[in-house]
């Protein structure tokens, strides 16, 4: 075998190995999704969405309180996360090309990579400790903090994509800067910003660790922000580590619902991004 053939062979083998890597990575994904559907689909029934958990030993029951709790937590978390995230994003894009902006950006990324359980401890120390009880509010605060950096980053990126000419046209007509930002810049960037919000929600929806000792969990129906509240991920965790067969079955069903919610949000984010003329324009460039 001459040098040329050997080099070609090495090239083929190495490129082939890259393809093997793809297969090795994709296969577990398909296995997880497939197994989830296989185990969960038979337990997806109206009871899962409408009934409360049954006491230990009785089969049946559902996760209605956990699903409602998750939605409440996400709603409350968005109130905090969206406002802080979008405003921070506006600051970074419009006024952030200075030292302070650099620090905000750096710390926002730091927050993004802070383990979610540490953020849970933080919410515990500043809400649960003073009020002396677990509450939905504490859980929502933890999720909100997790959402902030994701939203801030996408907002900044999207605002930066808005063409300067659009901004200048508005300013030239005598419109104030803040009104230009709200009426022209934000409106143009809104599909992109919504994408960021959806991504943040998808991330927050699956978070378990920060809820363990903030929202805690509950076996009852409650929508009070001042009481412990159940959530889908925590319920799945509790059921998964329990010794009961019927709870395992429900954990799989719950996980399937959770994956469904997360994937739907991810798809919505992609759809919004695809619709956004800004993102399309940026891609073409």
């Amino acid at each position, binding site marked *: 075998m001459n040098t040329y053939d050997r080099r070609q062979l090495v090239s083929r083998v*190495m490129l082939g190995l*890259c393809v093997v890597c793809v297969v090795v990575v994709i296969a577990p994904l398909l296995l997880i999704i497939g197994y989830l559907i296989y185990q969960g689909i038979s337990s997806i029934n109206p009871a899962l969405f409408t009934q409360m958990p049954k006491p230990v030993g009785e089969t049946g029951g559902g996760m209605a309180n956990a699903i409602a709790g998750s939605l409440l937590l996400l709603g409350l978390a968005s109130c905090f996360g969206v406002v802080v995230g979008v*405003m921070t994003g506006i600051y970074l894009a419009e006024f952030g090309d200075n030292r302070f902006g650099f620090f905000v950006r750096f710390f926002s990324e730091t927050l993004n990579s*802070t383990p979610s*359980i540490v953020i849970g401890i933080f919410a*515990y120390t500043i809400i649960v400790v003073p009020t002396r009880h677990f509450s939905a509010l504490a859980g929502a605060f933890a999720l909100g903090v997790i959402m902030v950096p994701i939203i801030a980053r996408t907002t900044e990126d999207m605002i930066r994509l808005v063409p300067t000419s659009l901004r200048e046209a508005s300013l030239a007509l005598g419109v104030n800067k803040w009104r230009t930002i709200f009426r022209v810049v934000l409106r143009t960037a809104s599909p992109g910003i919504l994408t960021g919000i959806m991504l943040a929600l998808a991330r927050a929806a699956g978070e378990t660790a920060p809820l363990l000792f903030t929202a*805690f969990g509950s076996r009852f129906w409650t929508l009070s922000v001042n009481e412990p509240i159940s959530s889908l991920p925590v319920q*799945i965790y509790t059921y998964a580590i329990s010794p009961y067969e019927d709870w395992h079955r429900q954990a799989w069903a719950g996980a399937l619902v959770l994956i469904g919610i997360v994937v739907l949000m991810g798809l919505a984010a992609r759809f919004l991004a695809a619709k956004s003329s800004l993102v399309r324009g940026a891609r073409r460039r």
Partner: protein
Amino acid sequence: MAADSIAKRLKAPAVLARGRLADRAFYTATFIFAGLVLIIVAAIFIELVAMSWPSLIKFGPRFITSTAWDPVARKFGALPLIFGTVVSSTLALLLALPLGLGVAIFLSDIAPSWLKTPVGFLVELLAGIPSVVYGLWGIFVLAPVVMDHLAPWLNRYFGWLPLFKGASYGVGMLTAGLILALMVVPFITSVSREILMTVPRDQREAALALGMTRWEMIRYAVLPYGRVGIIGAAILSLGRALGETMAVTMVIGNTPKISASLFNPAYSMAAAIANEFTEASSPLYLSALIEVGLVLFGVTFIVNALARLLIWRVGGGRKRVRL
């Protein structure tokens, strides 16, 4: 005269002044919210230090060197937890780095364009699966496979290594490392893919023009160019793995012991907090758990700062590469 009266009638200066005031107010509002992000990060650090103060005082540096994690005897040494976190994350990184890099190379240089989008989407989907679902799958599917097939096989052929001694009960360091590897692959892939995309086309074409094969082009022209960024991607993923909680908690076995064999159950910092926080019966216990959180926060902070500086450096400021 006429212009003056029109201006007076329009109250132009007043309108302008009000506009300027509104602009200032708006700027201040965005500034405050941006500042809030800094305050949150600072507050996390301050709260963690304040709440772990009793433990910081009582154990001092022994906290991270002592191997006794025994809540009943009120002894708190976090070394077994740190050991478990570091070993499981390192194991994950060793497995995930070549895999993730392979996928990134596939996506940037090998895949035909019709295949890029679906493969990219699937890898993103892998990143989107919630940690607790990984854990659920880990307990019921991966752990039995490790116990019945992978561990005995490793033991038979590599049993002479202390790493693969003894029998596996399914849950343990190895299973945790495998699950973690799966969870960080998407991060390595997406960051290194971005990095590889920043390698100029000229660089590739020059390599091919010199008569290199495609692999030689990747090996000698593309990878060296992106080396710093790829190291950054690896460190960033390490940061992710260190802080990962639920999946690890569910499969690592939750036993605060240091052992050489990867088959044995172990513990991690995040898992200890998740498991024991609500059961902490004494203020000292709680304080020790929060100190574990402080150590975790410190370690991930350093690791991530390092990674980001590397990536920003090669990414040409913050414009091209963000994760």
